[in-house]
């Protein structure tokens, strides 16, 4: 167990470090924007007020409320302190609404959509890839080009096509939103049914997209392993085929686990844009509205949450990997 502690300790330090740097980037980059965010709110709230003194007072008030009058470094530490407590301040575009208010629901929708979709897509992709490598012949000939093509369609593209076919043309799925527009979120049967109906298209479009890439990766890993020396050696020894296949797929699976951790960021990014197509009430849609209304408190909170989610997911995968890869275990006991 001591060896594991070292491994996990290293991973935790790495996790905290990346989080901190991601946090700095999150704070600095949006603030480089040339446009004045306060002027943006003023254009909405101060419409029709012609008195310069009043507008000046309003402007100063907003600057004070958002803490923009303090030096950048002080703003940073205030932000850090508040963010650690889970408080992301006030929204610019929907002032005086709190950022937490806006994104807290979105987080649940996004998690509920993307986590199952990516896991299901990863599983199906791996199974298909392994089958393609093992069966070869017709299945492989058909599956390979198809997966390659699927992995080239961007996630939002699949979303648009699914929407065009199932919602617009066939009319068997709702076109937008996370639940019926005439419903108020509650725990009634109608609401849950509506959520499930709205869930199908976004879910399957993300799944289908993830299948392609994973299948290709798993197939080439499996082919590589099937040609490895230990497989030939086992064959010469007369080990049963099913047993060899078990070894092969276990070995081919390991890089796929790391691969998932590495491609998670890309997958989440694609899925966020797919959310926009369905006007799904998740973080992707929040991101879009934050961009269009140049609301950087919401924008940086959203990107920070997404980064945090991806970091936690990769961290979890790293931990799982530590348990399932015998090489990690061996290395720790040296």
């Amino acid at each position: 167990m001591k060896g594991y502690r070292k491994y996990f300790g290293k991973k935790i330090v790495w996790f905290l470090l990346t989080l901190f740097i991601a946090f700095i980037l999150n704070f600095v980059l949006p603030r480089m924007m040339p446009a004045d965010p306060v002027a943006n709110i003023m254009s909405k709230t101060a419409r029709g007020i012609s008195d310069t003194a009043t507008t000046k007072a309003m402007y100063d008030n907003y600057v004070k409320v958002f803490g923009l009058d303090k030096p950048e470094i002080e703003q940073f530490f205030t932000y850090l302190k508040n963010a650690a407590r889970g408080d992301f301040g006030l929204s610019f575009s929907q002032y005086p609404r709190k950022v937490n208010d806006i994104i807290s629901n979105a987080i649940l929708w996004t998690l509920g959509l993307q986590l199952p979709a990516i896991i299901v897509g990863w599983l199906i992709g791996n199974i298909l890839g392994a089958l393609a490598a093992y069966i070869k012949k017709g299945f492989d000939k058909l599956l390979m080009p198809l997966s390659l093509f699927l992995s080239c369609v961007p996630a939002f593209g699949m979303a648009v096509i699914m929407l065009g076919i199932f919602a617009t043309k066939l009319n068997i799925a709702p076109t937008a939103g996370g639940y019926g527009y005439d419903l108020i979120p509650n725990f009634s049967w109608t609401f849950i049914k509506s959520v499930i109906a709205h869930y199908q298209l976004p879910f399957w479009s993300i799944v289908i997209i993830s299948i392609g890439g994973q299948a290709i990766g798993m197939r080439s890993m499996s082919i590589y392993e099937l040609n490895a020396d230990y497989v030939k050696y086992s064959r010469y020894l007369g080990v049963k085929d099913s047993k060899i296949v078990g070894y092969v797929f276990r070995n081919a699976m390991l890089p796929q686990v790391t691969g998932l951790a590495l491609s998670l960021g890309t997958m989440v990014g694609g899925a966020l844009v797919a959310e926009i197509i369905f006007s799904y009430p998740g973080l992707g849609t929040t991101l879009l509205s934050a961009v269009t209304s140049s609301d950087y408190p919401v924008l940086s909170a959203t990107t920070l949450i997404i980064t945090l989610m991806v970091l936690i997911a990769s961290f979890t995968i790293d931990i799982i990997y530590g348990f399932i890869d015998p090489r990690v275990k061996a290395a720790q006991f040296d």
Partner: protein
Amino acid sequence: MKNTIRQVFHSPKFVVGFSIFVLVLLSLFIYPLFVPGNPLQMVGLSSFSEPGTYVSVYDAIDSEPDIMKLPEADAKRLADKLNEEDRAAMKEWLLLIGIPEADIDTTDTKSLLKLWEEKYDPSLKPAGMTMAKRNYYKRLNTNLEQALNASEVVIATENAETGALEEAKVVTDTDYINTKDVINSITLPLGTDNFGRDTLKELVSAAKTSIMIGLIAGSIATFIGLSTGLLAGYIGGWVDELILFITNLFTVIPGFIILILVSYGIGQENRGATTCAIVIGFTSWTWTTRSVRSQVISLRNRDHVNLSKLSGHSLLRIILNDILPYIASYVVMALILQISTAILAEAQLSMLGLGPKTTEIPTLGLMMNWAMLYSAHTHGYWWAYFPVLLIIALISFSLNLMNTGLDQVFNPTLRD
């Protein structure tokens, strides 16, 4: 070198991918030669016109008609006149006056009309029917009668002085004109977009810009990845540690998020296509660094490199002569993949409203963005978004296919 290229072109996957890519590229350059003009010119004043050939009705009146009698012309005209709503209304009337539902088939225009002709009586007042509804049926009936006993249509011009209408031309139902005789006509193979622009012309120009963005971003990413990978792998020590640290950092922090933040920070006004390409290039080099680094590490202690070192060759010379040729295939593969990811990245950014400035040139992502903003997808205007997606997928597919082909040539273990 010559041998390698020959070997590469023996890989069927590479050849297929390469041909698709070259074909796409060729058509992008040839199409504007045949259909010149500004791709952003707004031809249509209404948005989302369907694909097809549009001839000027005004000019068509002046053209000399030929007399033709097409079979089924009347039936088609009638079927066209009767929309779903009218059919349903006719059924409603027939039901009201006591015709059994089984006898009414709204999909069969002929039998429906026959039944209607027999049973409809304008003087009848079914119970519970409002005046407005009865008038609606009267109008419907007149329309149908007109369509049945095709009468002539008179085109009149207004006399400038008296304001009276004067007969200019009589059009009968057997008049046909050749579309070539109409002076003003336009063929829109993919209709128009929300601004009334020719979608195909725009698409060709957009695809060209997107490929350019891909090339710029891909070259930048490959260049950064190659140089950092070479430095980290060959020099090692703290340089390696530092580069590896930064690389790992940006592999874990989603590149897409950094891209969003940087693009947002730059601001809408400063984002041209080239700026976008540069930003994408600067945020997507980590993969190349990783793979180049691991390749170089395995090469670093080979005999020929050591020999070069002992002969006192400079660092630059060793890298150029003894290391680069061995990793060239990886670099080319990385470049190809970078180009395809960059094209996708641009599209995704534009979908978020963080793409290039919208006024100057179209890109594939911007076209998607516009189509979505004007909800082409929920209205079924497939021509505004489907061809764009197809081009994105086709370019990306061909590049990936080339990459897989190269991979199989240079990694014999992957061959089937």
